[in-house]
């Protein structure tokens, strides 16, 4: 017989009470009133001489009652035939997920995290399968299950420790949600030796900072049986503030005024900070440091001290807090983009009935971009050099034979042009440009046409895919041309008119593309130029054509910096803040921006600088509540480690509880208690009556 709660058996010690009471001479229950007790002192109860127990049967009944009660509370059960088979060699999959984000650079944090991971590695058993992952902006596998199993049992922990020792926190932000979901996916991988896995534990070792991103956790389908154990690295509370430069706030004038967003941690006890500019070599470039006031838990934007106009890159430093890793932010002055669009026509740019009038105005000059529309035909002579300077071309109608060859070659080098079919005479030029055998173009009849069957999956129309913006039905095309392409052509129709004829088609030419529009945007042809769709459509067209590089100079660590030159045979030389240099082909983004600082891209005789900074959220180092993870469905086990042995013990206890619940022997014991109590009442009553009778007779 076993007991579910055996410590209640200690209650059996209470039988000492009845035994003692039976040894003590019974205190008379009679009460005698007396005039005064001033001369009397209480007599202590006397134990009967020779330890003679009085009323032995009564005593036995009372002791039995207590024993049965104690046994009932101990919840006995028989486990002879229902013993739970103990699995001695149970498999366990353990994933250690170690945070290597920038916030782990704080003093002593990484050492503690590593020692926690090493403690888990030391506790592994030969049956365990272990994977070690680190994460910041994205997770990285240090050791996977297959490697772990392939190593010798004695070497596993030490090899994993060696790999972990070679890792240190980087400068990236914390994508905790992505890391957790990726680590959970590790469990889906088949176990290396094919044995069934009964325990799956994911140990998250992190400072669990408030600024960690939890994207992707909501509604994530966790593999069955996975338990997440949180191991928060204890960090001494420190006042921390961080900053980032708002790229959108940068302006160029006589002086540069930069907006800086500063955040103060909610656990901070500092409120006053200073902002100060430094040049690339660390010397101060502006005057006195600017003092700012920011209460704990708040984020505000400030105008940083002005920078001289000629400054191309600088570093701003925040002082006044106790944590330094996030106190620097880098600024790269935006440079204006100069783009040229070739217009193959002779229209005046001041005639509002002509298409060029609208093309000239659809690209206004901005601080980041200056678009210039040129005509490659100067004084009746076509100039291929002018065309080569262009990032994009618009061909209204027809082309001269010498223009066709040059333009086709220009297109074949990866450029994009928009061919506007203005009349039926454009067919030969279009066929020549696209090298198609024959394209039939005819003037469409009818009052007007509307756009239909727009391909919103194409990058050109993707910005309009949202239902709020995808209504093109208010654009009337008074005139348009019906185009018929040969059946074998690779033309992709991006939009059609409501009569079924193509409105906009994409025809590849070499590495480039020719977009063919079957109607013009001049008022005589359509309302396109007058609609709200025209400007974003043309901007998207320019961006998609590769002629423009997005004017962005501020990046976060881990971002890919787009190439400053989109095409051509130029090689872009990249220089990192630590001096390392790398070469990338034109158009290839630079993806090794893993350090905060100024990155320099050199191509040809041009040089462009980009600033890479820590994400501002990384400065929010106050601890996150584990409830936040639980709310997002993370299957948290406990906040502390639960070893496998203990888990087995818990399971065994549950099994025993189930057995006990099924048998419910305590009920019989309670019935026994009631029966014994009944007997005790009868016996004690009889004894009392007998004593009273004896007293009366004496």
């Amino acid at each position, binding site marked *: 017989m076993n007991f579910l709660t055996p410590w209640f058996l200690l209650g059996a010690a209470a039988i000492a009470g009845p035994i003692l009471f039976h040894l003590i001479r019974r205190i*008379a229950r*009679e009460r*005698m009133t007396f005039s005064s007790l001033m001369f009397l002192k209480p*007599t202590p109860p006397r134990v009967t001489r020779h330890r003679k127990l009085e009323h032995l049967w009564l005593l036995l009944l009372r002791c039995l009652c207590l024993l049965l009660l104690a046994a009932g509370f101990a919840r006995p059960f028989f486990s002879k035939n229902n013993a739970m088979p103990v699995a001695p060699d149970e498999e366990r999959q353990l994933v250690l997920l170690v945070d290597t984000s920038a916030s782990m650079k704080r003093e002593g944090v990484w050492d503690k995290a590593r020692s926690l991971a090493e403690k888990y590695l030391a506790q592994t058993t030969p049956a365990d399968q272990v994977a070690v992952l680190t994460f910041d902006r994205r997770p990285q596998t240090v050791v996977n299950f297959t490697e772990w199993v392939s190593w010798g049992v004695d070497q596993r922990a030490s090899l994993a420790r060696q790999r972990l020792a070679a890792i240190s926190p980087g400068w990236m932000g914390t994508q905790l949600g992505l890391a957790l979901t990726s680590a959970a996916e590790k469990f889906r991988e088949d176990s290396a030796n094919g044995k069934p896995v009964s325990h799956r534990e994911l140990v998250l070792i992190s400072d669990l900072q408030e600024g960690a991103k939890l994207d992707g956790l909501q509604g994530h389908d966790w593999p069955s049986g996975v338990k997440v154990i949180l191991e928060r690295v204890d960090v001494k509370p420190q006042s921390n503030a961080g900053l980032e430069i708002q790229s959108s706030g940068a302006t160029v004038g006589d002086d540069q005024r930069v907006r800086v967003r500063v955040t103060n941690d909610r656990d901070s006890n500092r409120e006053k900070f200073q902002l100060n500019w430094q040049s690339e070599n660390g010397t101060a470039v502006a005057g006195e440091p600017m003092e700012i006031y920011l209460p704990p838990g708040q984020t505000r934007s400030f105008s940083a001290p002005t920078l001289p106009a000629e400054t191309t890159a600088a570093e701003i430093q925040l002082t006044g807090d106790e944590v330094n890793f996030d106190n620097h932010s880098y600024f790269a002055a935006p440079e204006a983009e100069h783009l040229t669009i070739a217009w193959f026509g002779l229209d005046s740019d001041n005639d509002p009935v002509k298409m060029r009038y609208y093309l000239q105005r659809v690209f206004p000059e901005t601080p980041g971009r200056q678009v210039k529309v040129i005509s490659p035909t100067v004084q009746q002579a076509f100039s291929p050099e002018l065309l080569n300077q262009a990032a994009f071309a618009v061909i209204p109608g027809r082309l001269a034979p010498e223009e066709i060859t040059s333009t086709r070659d220009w297109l074949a080098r990866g450029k994009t042009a928009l061919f506007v079919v203005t009349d039926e005479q454009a067919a030969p030029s279009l066929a020549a440009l696209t090298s198609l055998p024959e394209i039939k173009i005819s003037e469409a009849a009818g009052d007007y046409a509307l756009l239909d069957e727009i391909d919103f999956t194409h990058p050109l129309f993707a910005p309009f895919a949202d239902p709020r913006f995808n209504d093109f039905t208010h654009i009337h095309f008074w005139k348009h041309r019906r185009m018929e392409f040969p059946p074998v052509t690779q033309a992709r129709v991006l939009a059609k008119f409501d009569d079924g004829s193509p409105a906009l088609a994409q025809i590849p030419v070499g590495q480039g593309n020719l977009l063919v529009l079957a109607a013009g945007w001049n008022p005589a042809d359509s309302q396109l130029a007058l609609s709200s769709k025209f400007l974003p459509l043309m901007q998207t067209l320019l961006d998609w054509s590769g002629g423009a590089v997005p004017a962005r100079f501020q990046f976060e660590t881990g971002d890919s910096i787009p190439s400053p030159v989109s095409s051509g045979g130029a090689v872009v030389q990249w220089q990192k803040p630590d001096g390392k240099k790398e070469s990338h082909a034109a158009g290839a983004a630079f993806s090794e921006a893993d350090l905060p600082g100024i990155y320099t891209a050199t191509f040809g005789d041009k040089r462009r600088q980009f600033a890479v900074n820590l994400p501002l959220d990384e400065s929010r180092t106050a601890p996150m509540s584990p409830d936040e993870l639980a709310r997002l469905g993370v299957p948290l086990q406990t906040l502390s480690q639960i070893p496998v042995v203990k888990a087995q013990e818990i399971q065994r206890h549950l099994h025993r509880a189930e057995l006990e619940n099924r048998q419910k022997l305590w009920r019989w014991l309670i019935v026994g208690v009631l029966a014994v109590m009944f007997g005790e009442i009868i016996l004690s009553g009889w004894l009392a009556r007998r004593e009273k009778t004896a007293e009366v007779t004496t």
Partner: protein
Amino acid sequence: MAIRSLELRARVVVEGFWNGLHRSPYHGYSVEFTEYRQYSPGDETRYLDWRLYARSDRYYLKKFEDETNLRCHMLVDQSRSMSYGSVGHTKSDYARTLAATLAWFLNEQGDAIGLFTFAGRVRDYLPARHRHGHLRQLMLVLEKESEGRETNLGEPLRRVAELARKRGLIVLISDLLAPIDELERNLGRLTAVGHELVIFQVLDPNELAFDFNRAMLFQDVESQKDIYLDPETVRAEYQRKLQSHGLGVEGICRKLGSAFHRVVTNQPMDIALFNFLQSRNRRGKLIRRRTQSTSPS
């Protein structure tokens, strides 16, 4: 205590007492002859004893004891401890009968009788008077049941000293079950103002012998406190303490010049009355001797 009426009980006791005496030493003592004194010129001639002059041919004056009206106050304790009794009547019954007996007796002698009943404080007060109906009123007050609690002599005796301003006889009937020092302080207050004090300590036979045969819970009738007692164990100690207390009270009485009588509730009442009168007689003789020794001859 078989006679229910207190008045009748007192009367029976007093008359029985008188019948038992062959010659009352107190009969007519109010105008009692005390001594002869030789005549001196200037003395009143009406007190000359002419018969003695006839026999001895000398002039002697007869001297008489001055007749005084005694003012007596009975102080009857009616605290809850007096409600104890093991012989068919309580100490309170006995005390009230004793008070009534003394009152009857003194009233018959023509003395003014007053009454205080107390139990923690003075409950009833009848001023000392000698007139028709007063004795009956006194009996009615004595017949009232006790409602008191503890034996606290301090407050009642202070009140008695205030109310009985004229010097007289104070008869205190109580069990005196209170601490000795407290008793001394309170009784001294009465004698200090010139009262003559006679104390009757009324005790139950069980209080003296503590004759219980088995252990049980004993409850104090005043404090309602329960204690477990084995009489065999505590009897000797109890009796020693009680005796010590009695000796203490006697010592106080001696110091204060008061008469002390311990009466047990199973004793006949007339014995108590006899003891009282005897002590009065002794005291009277003592006073006379003192007066003779101090008076100029």
